[in-house]
């Protein structure tokens, strides 16, 4: 069976499972049946895509189904790029299904989740496989709608209806932009097959328009600032394993769409494209993580951090565009590999972190970090896996987040080769923004972990929490192990990504497998090299050495006592640092500008027994400056037009007559 057929059979299986879930919806076994079946199907699709990526990737395989547009049919194709993203999708699908086997039992309304979960997975697979514009858009809409249904699974909870509404509006807007982009790509001849688009010549004007439309369409789905507003509302509203899929995987499908069109279909990139992408990526990375830093809800914090990582990926893609436009093939391959590596890494640790947040939610029923705390004692395994995710996402060695970040920095360091002045100056500045985003990410995840899992419990829910089931834990530990493996064996990943860079950019990074000790060397050893395995071994060795010496020669005495409170003992857990107070220094340094943040202290008069209060004022300037006016204008227009619904019959008739006359006039003048 050829690979694309295998993938399509898996998709058909997932769609069948969606129907089965409707049939079984009210039965007790449905959760176990559906999730174990999706686990099996995703695992098969995952193995198929990995085998294809590692094996013979030279020949892409096609499949034409006689559905879709009558003169075109529905084309599906498996090439190197698609197989990589299929791997990301199906790995996310498999781990989310495994997690769902345990987590799904706590679901209050399984019949609202189960049919849409496999459908959502099928939609994402189909988007990656589609090889003509019509099927692509159809599958894209299918994916959007399935995920929308999952966002609306708990539609009675406060805020979820609004989240679903905004998501729907933004998804429609994104699809509109994609529709126009593909319309431009198809050209006047109107050939919607990707193969035809690839060979067609695109005028610079059309190419620029397509790029902007792709940034609007795919960028809004991926969460590029300022089109990100739906993401922190919709991702957390879904059940946690779906949040993991939306954040870890669906944003990657959007990035796939961007890569497919801008790198593959459009042909040789232009410089202005790279400048726009670099700038948007840098702004997205910094803004995303600043938003995350201000957040108290753990799932929303994770969603905002997704925006940051999407920004990092777009910076890397922008670098690849800039190098490719100047014919610097090796540097372009480096930047592009870094982007793909970060795609993979982010899907690992973001899924892991959302699973952890879901476990906390199951155990305590709380998403507000200020009501949690001390969970490391109550949920030791979850807290360990979550810690791995936090270290990995904070780009710290020896985990995987650092490797992709390091590769991006190496690509940034290639920028002196660029002949253009604007880029020469812009790229280091964007590099500094990336470093800022990385440091803020570390701060943000110290906050997320410190407030949620460390300290003393801030409420009864956190005090009585229990460890979650084994399925959820095994899903988390598989991802944690992958985070470590990709961090210490990055050379294998880079080599596995080389068929994609060869297919897209016609160049590749040097072969890493021959380097001694499994180092990675992006350009030359004298320039830079990194060895995650040795760093890991050295840290382990020197830590064990220290432990050995301490236990051999130092005192073993250990006494438990109350914490030092400066003379005050028995302080309440509420006196601990909270999420808001932890963010205070950064809020003060960056927030006064970015969020117009103000602290208001309400101090009671002397003698008054009321408590003093500290109120924090934050403004989401993008929402207030961009979306609120648009929403206001639409609301205003609707209010005015509402008047037209209550006219007398005479006025309606005259309105119709006036319209007719106007249209005829227009027609007369036009022709």
């Amino acid at each position, binding site marked *: 069976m050829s690979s694309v057929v295998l993938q399509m059979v898996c998709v058909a299986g997932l769609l069948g499972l969606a129907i089965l879930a409707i049939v079984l919806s009210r039965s007790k076994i449905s959760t176990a049946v559906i999730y174990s079946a999706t686990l099996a199907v995703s695992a098969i699709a995952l193995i198929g895509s990995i085998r294809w990526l590692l094996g013979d990737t030279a020949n892409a395989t096609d499949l034409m189904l006689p559905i879709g547009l009558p003169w075109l049919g529905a084309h599906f194709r498996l090439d190197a790029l698609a197989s990589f993203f299929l791997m990301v999708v199906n790995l996310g699908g498999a781990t989310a299904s495994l997690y769902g086997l345990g987590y799904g039992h706590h679901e209050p309304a399984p019949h609202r989740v189960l049919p849409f979960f496999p459908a959502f997975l099928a939609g994402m697979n189909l988007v990656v496989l589609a090889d003509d514009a019509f099927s692509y858009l159809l599958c894209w809409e299918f994916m959007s709608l399935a995920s929308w249904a999952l966002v609306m699974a708990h539609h009675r909870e406060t805020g979820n209806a609004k989240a679903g509404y905004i998501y729907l509006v933004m998804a429609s807007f994104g699809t509109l932009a994609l529709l126009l982009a593909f319309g431009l790509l198809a050209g006047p001849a109107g050939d919607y097959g990707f193969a035809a688009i690839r060979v067609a010549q695109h005028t610079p004007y059309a190419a620029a328009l397509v790029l902007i439309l792709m940034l609007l369409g795919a960028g809004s789905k991926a969460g590029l600032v300022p089109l990100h507003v739906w993401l922190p509302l919709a991702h957390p509203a879904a059940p946690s394993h779906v949040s993991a899929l939306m954040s870890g995987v669906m944003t990657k499908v959007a990035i796939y769409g961007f890569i497919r069109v801008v790198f593959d279909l459009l042909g040789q990139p232009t410089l202005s494209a790279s400048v726009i992408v670099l700038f948007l990526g840098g702004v997205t990375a910094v803004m995303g993580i600043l938003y995350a830093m201000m957040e108290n809800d753990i799932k929303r914090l994770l969603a905002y951090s997704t925006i940051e990582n999407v920004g990092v990926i777009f910076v890397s893609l922008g670098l690849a565009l800039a190098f490719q436009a100047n014919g610097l093939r090796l540097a372009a391959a480096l930047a592009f590999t870094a982007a793909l590596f970060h795609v993979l890494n982010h899907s690992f640790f973001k899924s892991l972190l959302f699973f952890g947040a879901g476990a906390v939610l199951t155990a305590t029923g709380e998403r507000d970090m200020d009501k949690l705390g001390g969970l*490391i004692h109550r949920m030791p395994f979850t807290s360990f896996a979550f810690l791995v995710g936090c270290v990995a996402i904070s780009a*710290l060695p020896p985990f995987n987040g650092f490797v992709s970040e390091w590769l991006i920095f190496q690509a940034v360091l290639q920028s002196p080769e660029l002949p253009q002045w604007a880029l020469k100056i812009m790229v280091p500045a964007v590099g500094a923004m990336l470093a800022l985003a990385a440091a803020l990410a570390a701060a943000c995840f110290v906050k997320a972990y410190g407030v949620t899992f460390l300290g003393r419990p801030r409420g009864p829910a956190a005090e009585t929490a229990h460890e979650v089931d084994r399925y959820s834990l095994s899903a988390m530990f598989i991802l944690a192990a992958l985070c470590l493996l990709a961090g210490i064996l990055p050379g294998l990943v880079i080599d596995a990504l080389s068929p994609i860079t060869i297919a897209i950019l016609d160049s590749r990074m040097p072969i890493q497998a021959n380097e001694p000790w499994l180092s990675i060397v992006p350009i030359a050893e004298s320039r830079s090299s990194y060895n995650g395995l040795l760093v890991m071994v050295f840290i382990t060795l020197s*830590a064990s050495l220290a*432990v050995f010496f301490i236990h051999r020669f130092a005192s073993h005495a250990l006494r438990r*006592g109350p914490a*030092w409170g400066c003379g005050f003992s028995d302080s309440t857990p509420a006196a601990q640092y909270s999420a808001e107070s932890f963010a205070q220094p950064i809020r003060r340094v960056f927030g006064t500008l970015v969020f117009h943040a103000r602290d208001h202290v309400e101090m009671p008069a002397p003698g008054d027994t009321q408590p003093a209060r500290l109120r924090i004022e934050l403004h989401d300037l993008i929402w207030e400056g961009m979306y609120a006016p648009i929403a206001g204008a639409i609301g205003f227009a609707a209010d005015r037009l509402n008047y037209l619904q209550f006219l007398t019959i005479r006025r309606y008739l005259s309105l119709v007559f006036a319209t007719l006359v106007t249209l005829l006039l227009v027609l007369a003048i036009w022709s």
Partner: protein
Amino acid sequence: MVVISDILVQGVQMLLVLLLAPLLTGFVRKIKARLLRRRGASVFQPYRDLLRLLRKEVVLAENASWLFRVTPYVTFAAIWVAAALVPTFATGLLFNWTADLIAIVALLGSARFFLALAGMDVGTSFGGIGSSREVMIAALAEPAMLLIVFCMALVAGSTQLSTVANFMASSYVGLRVSLGMAVIALIMVALAENARIPVDNPATHLELTMVHEAMVLEYSGRHLAMIEFGAFLKLLLYISLIACVFLPWKIAVFGTGPLSYAVGAGAYLVKLAAAGFFLALFETATAKMRVFRIPQFLGAALMLGLLGTLLLFVSRSF
């Protein structure tokens, strides 16, 4: 045979940094005391402090978790590995290619990440205040550090410290304005990273003014010894870094034999002493700044790094 001697030289460097680090801190303290017209403790006092801490019992807060107990070792190991990868007396050591400067900075970031978490673990306000301010300082220092790396990599064409040191030691580098800016920026970042005056005061005893010390307030006994040792090592690391990149005078090139190693080691000791002396002089002459002045201080470092980079673009001769 070659491999064995390679490992030997690398091992000597690892031991050397370990043995010298407390001495350097003791030396700085001694000079500071002399500048204040005190006699001051012996330069060997930090060793005695470490031994004393090792012999004492650990008083652990009641709800301290395993993370709190593991952190001192993780932090120490990460800093030690980072310190062992910076060339001190010789370049081209066996494992220098394991990590370049970006990775070394990130290793220190790992150490800080765990320390900040440990500060949050016990659940007191002091730990929280220390952690939150420490991560703020790190968030400001890291972009500045990257621009310094960038500036340096533009001149030397590498982020690999051995290559950079060899390049800077060669005669045709000369004096450059942008390198001057980079070295000032790097010193500012180093002051912030090591919690020295004017960013933080390592000798403070008032909890509310502390950043780094507040974060590790709950530590005692052998755990505190590891953390203190880590801090000593970090100071040594930054001085070695500045010395090897901007002052690679007499640094031995790998494989040139024991004599040049000895000369390199001697030169290294002189550099350490000079840096320690100037650090003490600077700390005595300046006052600690308010916490929310630190952004301006580190912002200046960032701007210097950016300016240095831009100057390099404008003219190759700067």
